[in-house]
């Protein structure tokens, strides 16, 4: 389909780039990205992916917009309080860019639904805030051979890693198992600086875009850490675990697991 003058103008700053061009922009418009979690990470990622013209964006979250979300979840506004996060996010994305088709899934991911959720997508963003979901997303993406971006934020720190099937380690190669319940505080208990979601969520969007247009080097086999107070970024090289329980040649985990959530995170 040829670009309209309006689209040429909207995407002109992309198309001018040698690394994107009209071919790259077409790839973006044909791409399908699923964002799991419409929170601190998912909000900025969704905004940038929609603005970039990623043609189909799925967003999954069961929560409603709460006043305490607005300090960092920049896709929602005060007028959205009480609204389903996926609805609020979809409205903002469509308002930014009507080229984008948004699929909303008002659910948390579980072992029962995740394979169906990720099936139609080219790239997955993990924007969740808890270890059970992070391990579930990793295992499902490994099993379904889907690339995904892992990220986590807490206090003034953030981390990021990209998994591409057959290239480098998965999340479980590095972290093995979820920590014991309550061993690590969630951002609800520990706090998080709002702009951290902006930094790390935007990096997730950047990884998705690079993957789609096939340019540059992804954060595979490396973990990026960001310490805002020290103002330091580090990347740590990480090898694949040949005996990884999920991504090795002889996995011991062949079924998805719903780990138990820490009690303080449970919905009352």
């Amino acid at each position, binding site marked *: 389909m040829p*670009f309209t003058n309006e689209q*040429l103008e909207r995407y002109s700053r992309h*198309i*001018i780039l040698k690394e994107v*061009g*009209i071919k790259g922009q077409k790839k973006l418009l044909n791409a399908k990205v699923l964002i799991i979690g419409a929170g601190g990470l998912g909000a900025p990622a969704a905004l940038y992916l929609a603005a970039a013209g990623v043609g189909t964006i799925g967003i999954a979250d069961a929560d409603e917009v709460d006043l305490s979300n607005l300090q960092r979840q920049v896709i929602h506004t005060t007028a959205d309080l009480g609204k389903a996060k996926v609805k609020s996010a979809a409205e903002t994305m469509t308002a930014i860019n009507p080229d984008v088709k948004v699929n909303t899934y008002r659910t948390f991911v579980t072992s029962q639904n995740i394979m169906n959720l990720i099936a139609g997508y080219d790239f997955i963003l993990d924007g969740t805030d808890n270890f059970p979901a992070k391990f579930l997303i990793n295992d499902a993406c490994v099993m379904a051979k889907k690339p995904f971006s892992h990220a986590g934020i807490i206090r003034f720190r953030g981390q990021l890693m990209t998994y591409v099937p057959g290239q480098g380690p998965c999340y479980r190669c590095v972290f093995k198992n979820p920590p014991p319940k309550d061993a690590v505080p969630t951002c609800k208990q520990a706090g998080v600086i709002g702009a951290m979601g902006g930094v790390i969520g935007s990096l997730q969007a950047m990884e998705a875009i690079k993957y789609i247009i096939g340019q540059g080097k992804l954060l595979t086999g490396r973990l990026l850490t960001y310490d805002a107070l020290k103002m330091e970024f580090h990347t740590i090289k990480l090898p694949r675990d040949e005996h990884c329980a999920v991504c090795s040649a002889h996995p011991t985990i062949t079924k998805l697991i719903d780990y138990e959530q820490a009690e303080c995170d449970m919905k009352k």
Partner: protein
Amino acid sequence: MADTYQADETVDITDVVCPVTFVKAKVALEEMDEGQVLAIRMNDGEPVQNVPRSMKEEGHQVLKLNANNDGTYTLLVRKVGD
């Protein structure tokens, strides 16, 4: 006759402004084969200043800039690379 070039395709960028002028020309070139010639009709002023330079920066061969009699110009560019 060495300076007479036959255009394979034509694009009119007089209906858009910078940077879409260059973008529209670039899009037209992307759909052509290496060695083909594109005629780009543009307004005087900013497009005449910038589009030929941007085409050179992209590695294409700028062949000729002809003044039309209506205040517009036609730039002939040969596509280099795929």
